[in-house]
């Protein structure tokens, strides 16, 4: 994958993510959030993807403003930053209206690859974990243009 370009002047790194739900496929913008242990989407998004939140299991979420509950759904597929993951659990909660993204791309997804962020050029790369010297050289070919 080539580097993903993000807007350097924006308050967050925003990533377009394709979510395949129960009935539909939708592209949404999620905030790249290494401070969130899980990936989260807004309730409206989950509902429109065809999920019934009333019967979904819930978990506790602790943020800087206190504790609340989030529902768990399983997205049939998530595609983001060049990675495709099937049957991916996603948490659902009502996000504040002042947040103009539809969710957070959390560490549960991001851990699958290594991350390189060029904050001068606005390039984000995900890279596989290396499996030896030659593999590291191959990864070099991917990182070098983004430096």
């Amino acid at each position: 994958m080539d580097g993903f370009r993000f807007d350097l002047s924006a308050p967050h790194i925003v990533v377009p993510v394709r979510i395949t739900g129960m009935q539909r496929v939708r592209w949404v913008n999620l905030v790249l959030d290494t401070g969130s242990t899980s990936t989260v989407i807004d309730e409206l998004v989950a509902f429109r993807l065809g999920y019934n939140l009333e019967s979904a299991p819930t978990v506790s979420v602790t943020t800087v403003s206190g504790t609340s509950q989030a529902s768990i759904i399983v997205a049939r597929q998530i595609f983001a930053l060049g990675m495709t993951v099937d049957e991916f659990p996603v948490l659902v909660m009502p996000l504040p209206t002042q947040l103009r993204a539809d969710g957070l791309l959390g560490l549960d997804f991001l851990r699958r690859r290594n991350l390189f962020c060029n904050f001068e050029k606005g390039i984000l790369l995900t890279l596989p974990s290396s499996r030896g010297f030659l593999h590291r050289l191959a990864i070099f070919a991917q990182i070098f243009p983004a430096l």
Partner: protein
Amino acid sequence: MDETRPEPIEQIRQRYEGEWLLIKVTSHDENGLPKEGILLGHFPDRKAAWEATEFVDGEVYVLFAGPTIPEGWEAVLHGWFSL
């Protein structure tokens, strides 16, 4: 809803700065990301944009044309989820 020819999504964003957009994706870039699309509607809030998706099949993109938080605000989106 507006129905026009496909155009670069970035162009649509610039035209409707500050609004939520519903776009039918018509092409992708080399990384598989939406590149061009047809604007199906523009809305003042997230709720209205997502309600409009009810009537649309296929690959659609809902996004806000602007920064993730209002000017003068900060965001602290840390979350610890106990699974």
